């Protein structure tokens, strides 16, 4: 198989598996094998939002008033979120598009990944409004050991799949010597790598992100950094859809009707899937240790966050039809539900307009209502 941007073969789309069938040609949606992806696309488009619509005028003052260890928690959490969305803004495209075989799934992947770029842009919007020098914070993401360690674990499956697929598209199946290294490329192994990559993406969006949401909302629970929380609510709404996307992909694979080999792989990978979930949970707990190293905050500490990690890990693995790992019972952060729900996010366009004039210029303590009568 080699990649072509417009496959000249004519074939029955409905007979193609989601991945590793014919490469796509006509971007048509009149016949669809899996209608769910069309639904996801529609929903994602209806969610469209712009970070600038959210007013962060009061967050700078809130941030300045935080204690040092709270600033550490806030910024580290934001750095982690920035890292995760940097990965998600490109990796689904780079990893999955060369091997996708259904137009509706191809478009879902693009739509999904595009929404991640909105998330990335929103972190810059937050930083600009909250800290005097955003560059310092962003630069630290590649310099700080604790963060870079997180990067390795969230990208290793993606990178493995991308590498193997590039060999496969150039050289095909077989044993190849590449730069003096012997590499065995076979489709079964590639599909296995794809399945595990999809699991790791589900873990990234459905567990890792939710742990970071808990931290963002813990500030807002105390009426601090509420503009930030509004943005995170919008991000959480998107992520809820993304995790539904990967759950569907994984369940379609496991059912084996789309591609019988995938069904076999899913059945034989259960132990590895459990390992991926468990490893991620342990990493998130370790991360909680780093976040709270200099002290906790009201309502959230290392122990409670670790309990939430276990709780959310169980929720997500059970959704894939596997047994829970930790046997947790209650959500240790019952207040998180109403924060995760986005119904009550309101963005006032004229306020947002004003806030962009305010960036770095005015004391953020100024009540934006005072500008109500101004026509800018």
């Amino acid at each position: 198989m080699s990649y072509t941007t417009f496959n000249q073969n004519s074939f029955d789309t409905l007979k193609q598996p989601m991945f590793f069938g014919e490469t796509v040609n006509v971007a048509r949606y009149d016949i669809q094998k899996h209608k769910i992806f069309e639904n996801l696309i529609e929903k994602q488009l209806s969610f469209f939002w712009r970070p600038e619509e959210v007013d962060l005028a009061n967050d700078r003052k809130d941030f300045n008033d935080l204690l040092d260890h709270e600033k550490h928690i806030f910024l580290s959490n934001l750095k982690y979120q920035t890292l995760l969305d940097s990965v998600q803004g490109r990796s689904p495209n780079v990893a999955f598009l060369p091997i996708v075989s259904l137009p509706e799934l191809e478009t879902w992947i693009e739509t999904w990944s595009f929404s991640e770029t909105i998330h990335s842009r929103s972190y810059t919007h937050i930083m600009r409004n909250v800290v005097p020098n955003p560059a310092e914070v962003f630069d630290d993401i590649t310099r700080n050991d604790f963060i870079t360690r997180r990067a390795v674990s969230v990208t290793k499956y993606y990178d493995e799949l991308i590498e193997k697929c590039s060999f496969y598209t150039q050289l095909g199946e077989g044993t190849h010597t590449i730069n003096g290294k012997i590499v065995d490329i076979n489709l079964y192994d590639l599909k296995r790598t794809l399945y595990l990559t999809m699991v790791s993406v589900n873990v990234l969006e459905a567990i890792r992100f939710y742990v970071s949401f808990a931290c963002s909302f813990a500030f807002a629970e105390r009426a601090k950094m509420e503009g930030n929380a509004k943005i995170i609510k919008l991000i959480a709404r998107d992520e809820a859809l993304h995790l539904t996307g990967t759950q569907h992909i994984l369940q379609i694979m496991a059912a084996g009707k789309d591609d019988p080999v995938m069904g076999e792989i899913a059945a034989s990978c259960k132990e590895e899937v459990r390992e991926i979930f468990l490893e991620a949970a342990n990493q998130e707990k370790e991360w909680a240790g780093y976040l709270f190293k200099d002290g906790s905050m009201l309502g959230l500490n290392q122990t409670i966050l670790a309990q939430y990690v276990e709780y959310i890990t169980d929720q997500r693995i059970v959704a894939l039809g596997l047994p829970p790992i930790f046997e947790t019972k209650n959500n240790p952060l019952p207040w998180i539900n109403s924060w995760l729900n986005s119904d009550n996010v309101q963005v006032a366009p004229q306020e947002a307009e004003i806030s962009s004039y305010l960036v770095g210029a005015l004391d953020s303590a100024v009540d934006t209502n005072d500008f109500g009568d101004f026509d800018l």
Partner: protein
Amino acid sequence: MTAHKQTNLKPRMNDQQEEFFLDGHNPAGTHEPLDFALETQFAEQDHGEAPVQENLLFDREYSENPSNSPQIDLDGMSKPIHQVTVKQYETTQNLAFQHANNLLESLEAQDVAVQYQCREGYCGSCRVQLLEGEVHYIDEPMAWVNSDEVLPCCCIPKTAIRIKLP
């Protein structure tokens, strides 16, 4: 937003079928509808034996135009109420569905804490196990649902149901 209390799941009464609670604690005996728009209009329709998952959409006409409801003629009669038995851990509660827009709202109104995020069927957070009975989806759910599960945020009971909370 509604406040959501952690629930004390002690059974509130013995298993007498006639005495279950109404959504939102309507005083016993007040079976009369307080607000017609809040009623479920589908309580007694027969939707056949289709499996829960394959019977996703129903005619929205009814829910939007209460006057189209066949129940408008049932003047003076009490609305059909479906019993909702909720199992969680070792406890069982007998509740009822009548007034709420969906099963999730009904459970919340009766102090059962169900997890949620989107409240419109695309995140899967509210998944519960359906042990017995049938539900009807008001909107087509987008979240992945296993064959024995339902999403309370976008369904209403079609019969008496037994559900198990995670």
